[in-house]
């Protein structure tokens, strides 16, 4: 009998989703109830994950198709917490647009379930299953504000392009299966014959599919449009949560079956990383819409996270995990600010709408200032440390070119972050925004800002948490 306790979080989450769906259908006006229950479910799942799986050694279940180890447990907990925070700060936004419906939390839960399956996967089929589950939920989420043309357009665009990338990914899977005789990561690793070029093709196709999911250049084209069109709370979800799962799969997929082919895929990753960092920095300069700008900035940040993965060491993987964690924190703060730019039931998302924010809302502007400097990677804020760890791992492998291009692109990126600060602090003030934000929105903004600000006092804690990740 398999040890089912280890997949208890997934089992609990799927049962809860079904229960909540039934509850939502049969009980009228239950959106508030479903929302609160979903939050509880996320927390309980995180607690179960923490209790059941965080301390155990690497265990494989169901014919080795699922792996439970420290990396997967940690990433699941981060995913669950991030989803919790997204859900909790988006309720005001949804109410304003009258799309506060039961489907929203349930879709988020389902996509989180998909991500958890992805994170656990040790098999191409399981991985694909998880990926599709999360993607299907995300398509619907992107169109969630269906009365708005932009939102529907975003969903459709995302669906078409994502389906294409899933096709490529499946093709890659089939190639790998054909030439190694298995879909299981460990078996592939054993059967690996590095002279087999078709395997390399398979890796490339899968990498393309994954790069699409985390919007790395040159497979990023969907991101700006989808991010701009989707409801802001969904954009927040897009920029944070799916990236955690995709990064984990990136790590697992490259380091478990294909570690011996590192020469082949390292170049691809370095290219993806450099292209994302540079493109993210340069393309963001011309943007006038904040959500589009965030899209480009997230493309750039994905580039930095990939740089850590490209290093090919445990240090590199750990630095990537740190990077993505700190990035999530910064994004949470950034979007909390965006969700506060509300006046008369209208949300403002042009960068000019920030004009003179520092005079009307000094605290909001100060938080945004700290978050933006942190995103730009200026010490002593958390964003600097994220970059520092990544580049430390990269330089230890003597990949100077990657490090120097990466750091130079931070200078370019600093320009557009500074431009936002300039608009907030140096420009003339406009009308005031509403100040009656919900408790949770204020809480998430304050908490993320403070954590970013004081991270430098306790930098060791996060390192200790990730230092137990041991893949190679």
């Amino acid at each position, binding site marked *: 009998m398999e040890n089912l306790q280890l997949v208890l979080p997934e089992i609990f989450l799927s049962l809860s989703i079904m229960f909540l769906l039934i509850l939502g259908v049969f009980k009228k006006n239950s959106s508030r109830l479903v929302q609160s229950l979903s939050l509880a479910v996320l927390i309980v799942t995180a607690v179960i994950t923490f209790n059941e799986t965080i301390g155990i050694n690497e265990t494989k279940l169901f014919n080795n198709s699922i792996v439970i180890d420290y990396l997967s447990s940690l990433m699941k907990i981060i995913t669950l917490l991030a989803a919790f925070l997204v859900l909790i700060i988006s309720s005001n936004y949804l109410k304003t647009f009258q799309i506060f419906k039961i489907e929203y939390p349930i879709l988020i839960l389902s996509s989180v379930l998909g991500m958890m399956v992805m994170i656990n996967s040790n098999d191409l089929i399981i991985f694909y299953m998880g990926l599709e589950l999360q993607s299907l939920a995300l398509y619907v989420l992107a169109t969630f504000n269906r009365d708005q043309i932009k939102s529907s357009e975003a969903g459709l665009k995302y669906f078409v392009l994502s389906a294409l990338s899933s096709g490529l990914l499946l093709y890659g899977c089939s190639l790998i299966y054909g030439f190694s005789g298995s879909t299981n990561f460990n078996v592939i690793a054993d059967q690996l014959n590095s002279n087999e070029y078709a395997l390399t093709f398979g890796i490339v196709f899968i990498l393309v599919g994954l790069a699409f999911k985390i919007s790395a250049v040159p497979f990023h084209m969907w991101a700006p449009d989808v991010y701009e069109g989707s409801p802001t709370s969904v954009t927040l979800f897009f920029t944070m949560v799916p990236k955690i799962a995709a990064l984990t799969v990136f790590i697992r997929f490259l380091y478990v079956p294909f570690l011996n082919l590192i020469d082949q895929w390292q170049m691809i990753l370095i290219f993806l990383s450099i292209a994302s960092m540079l493109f993210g920095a340069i393309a963001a300069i011309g943007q006038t819409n904040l959500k589009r700008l965030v899209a480009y900035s997230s493309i750039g940040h994905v580039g930095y996270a990939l740089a850590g993965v490209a290093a090919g060491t445990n240090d590199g993987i750990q630095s990537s995990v740190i990077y993505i964690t700190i990035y999530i924190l910064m994004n949470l703060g950034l979007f909390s600010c965006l969700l506060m730019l509300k006046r008369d039931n209208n949300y403002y998302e042009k960068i000019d709408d920030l004009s003179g924010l520092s005079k009307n809302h000094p605290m909001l502007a100060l938080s945004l200032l700290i978050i933006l400097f942190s995103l730009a990677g200026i010490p002593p804020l958390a964003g600097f440390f994220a970059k*520092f760890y990544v580049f430390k791992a990269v330089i230890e492998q003597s990949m*100077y070119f990657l490090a120097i291009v990466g*750091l130079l692109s931070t200078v370019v990126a600093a320009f557009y972050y500074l431009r936002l600060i300039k608009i907030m602090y140096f420009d003339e003030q406009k009308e005031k925004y509403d100040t009656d934000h919900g408790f949770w929105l204020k809480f998430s903004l304050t908490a993320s800002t403070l954590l970013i600000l004081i991270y430098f006092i306790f930098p060791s804690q996060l390192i200790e948490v990730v230092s137990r990740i041991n893949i190679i």
Partner: protein
Amino acid sequence: MNFPILSSLILLPSIGALFLFFTKSDKKNNFTGKYVALFTSAVNFFLSIYLWILFDPTTSEFQFVEERIWIKDLINYKVGVDGISILFILLTTFITPLCIISVNNSIKERLSEFLIAVLIMESFMIGVFCSLDLVIFYLFFEAGLIPMFLIIGIWGGARRVYSAFKFFLYTLLGSVLMLVAIITIYWLNGTTDVVELYNSGIDIKYQNLLWLAFFSSFAVKTPMWPVHTWLPDAHVEAPTAGSVLLAAILLKMAGYGFIRFSLGLFPAASEIFTPLIYTLSVIAIIFTSFIALMQEDMKKLIAYSSVAHMGYVTLGIFTIQQQGIEGSIIQMISHGLVSAALFLCVGVVYDRMHSRLINTYGGIVSIIPKYSILFMLFTLAALGLPGTSGFVGEFLILMGAFKDNFLVAVIASLGVIIGAAYMLWLYKRVVFGKLINTDLKQMFDLNRSELFILSCLAVPTLFFGFYPDPLINTIEVSISDLIDQYNFKLASKI
């Protein structure tokens, strides 16, 4: 030594800033805010004086060292001072309270935010001068960009946005390469602790590239020709207090960095690149002096003169002679006092007439005599008249240069003449001559706080001009030891 005096120096201004942050800022409270800031920075000044008294100048060891685990197995928080750094700490704590007093007249809005920025800046700058770990140094070095960017951008003049961006991006671009170098050093030696690195030395194969990476950062910050162009813009647009901080302290971080890191860590590379530094320094001295001659904006003129003065400093450092390096440090201290005073002098007339153009003025000597006297004192100090601290620095630098390279020293000496020309011409056009602009008649002389600030700056300028011993005693042993180390490493090829 139980009392963590250096950490207190770093933290105290930040705590003051935190206090200010929680003080409500209406008109009346702004006033208290100013006293809070003044009080904190004054306490910090006395604390640093106490540090100087306790300081033992007979050894080149780092003193008051504090070490704590910061990032486990990676970086320790380590601070300490030796003869080289202590004077810069004193300069910082001395200039900051004067800056805070000077905001009376120039900063009209968001006063408490301005004071917060200044205090946080002070924390970072003290941190730069006493950190004994490369990562900590980088942290403070870069962090200083944030408050300065805001000071220029929020309270600056008409082209403030352009200048603030230029300042920020130039310096950031220079610094990121230094970060690569620091991580490389960590990878090579397994530590970023400066003391350990001094002892173990750095692999000679990598020194040239590492030196260049550090140089790219320090050259921008110094600023050396040809990457000096951000400085005039930043100075012209920054508010008076901002210019003072920038000229008096920020520029010194790079000079300090050259001595501490370029000479200390990469002697072989320093030897190779000395001709480069000489060339750039001489160009800076001659070329920017000529540019200064042609300026019509007073602040711009002083900014260019700063570039020229920093040219002497870099020249002196890379002579690797006792006199040269001593001269550089004294020149930096003196320039910190004098350029601060000159910017304040410009600020005084700017507050009254709202013009920095030289041709607005002329013939003000009879209207504001006290101002004219002090302005003259600082003009003479800037051109290095004997009896002022400027002379001591320049003289020692040139002496060191003559020992090392005759040609460079001759050309650099010519720069002194051009320096005298532009400063005296500036003074002549502003203060003497016929009173043409009748609006000038309404100007009033220095008020009490202005007089106080300028006198505070005048006293050490004159004192150290006549009696530089306290300065030289403090730095002498550290520098001679640094040079011995340098020559030893060079000879034994580490």
